[in-house]
């Protein structure tokens, strides 16, 4: 018993802890440096597109302006969360911990928008 304990504690701290740790579910390698640079370029281009759209009066006056901006914002949000926050690569429980509250918060936001008359549902 003592021998077993001694042999385990001879490991370096991190190795010892890893030996005791249960196997983490579904963790994959993080992206490479080049992926990070590409993601930054895509985020910059989307931001440039958003600001450009803001300065086109005919587009701003049209019906597609707000949905386009909301889509581009959601796209940037998702890219940062997936690649920079590593949600695409990390264990599934982190997705649950993040998307659960985010979903509740988003539904609350939508409900408030309906309640205060900022969103409408057309009834025949």
């Amino acid at each position, binding site marked *: 018993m003592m021998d077993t304990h001694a042999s385990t504690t001879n490991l370096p701290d991190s190795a010892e802890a890893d030996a005791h740790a249960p196997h*983490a579910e579904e963790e994959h390698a993080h992206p490479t*440096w080049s992926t990070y640079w590409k993601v930054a370029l895509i985020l910059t281009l989307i931001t440039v597109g958003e*600001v450009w759209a803001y300065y086109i009066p005919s587009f*701003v006056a049209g019906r597609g302006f707000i949905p386009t901006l909301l889509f581009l914002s959601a796209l940037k949000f998702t890219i940062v*969360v997936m690649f*920079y926050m590593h949600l695409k690569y990390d264990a599934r429980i982190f997705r649950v911990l993040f998307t659960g*509250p985010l979903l509740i918060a988003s539904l609350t936001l939508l409900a408030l928008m309906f309640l205060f008359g900022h969103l409408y549902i057309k009834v025949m």
Partner: protein
Amino acid sequence: MTASVTHTSAPASHHYTTLGIDSRKIAIWAFIGSECMLFVSLISTYLIYKGRSIVGPFPHEAWTDPATGHVLKPILNIPVTSASTFVLLMSSLFMVLALAAVQNKEKPKHTRGDRILGNSKLWLWMTAAAGTTFLGFQAFEFTSFVHEGLTIRTNLFGSSFFTLTGFHGAHVTAGVLWLVTLLAIDYRRGLGSRDSLLVDIAALYWHFVDVIWIVIFTLVYLIK
């Protein structure tokens, strides 16, 4: 025997849950989830009050003060905010590069490029500098708004705008202070791959602050 006792009395470096995941990482994700609720409540308040201010200045429309006859232009400065948004986006890139540098600290660096990419101090400094620059932009924006007659007490727009962006700025400030503590550790004893979780947790917080700004930039500044 003595060695064994000495070793077991040392603090454990990892705190695993039964899922095999470090509890500190679960804690930061749970914290980020709760922060989502906080910021959505602030964003909801801003959106509910949007367009309901009785007196100006307004975010996107010019306004004539009936008392003085002064014409006040739309108060939001999109070019300046676009620049600060770009700076914050780049800070997220610097943060992931800092994390990658710490994770790969022990790997051999053969080229100059490898040494630059593997320099955690450089990327932590760059991230902190970008965060501070963003705060500088925000201070400039707040100051110019006050000079143009918009304070937190002027109208509904002012109240909800300063509360929302002020809370975000406070989070960026906390993030910069966190980065400075990591830099202090790096200078004192060097951050190695065994410290990657420390940097990972700080990075998650920093990216969260960035994604919140992505939403604020669109909803507050770009959508009229």
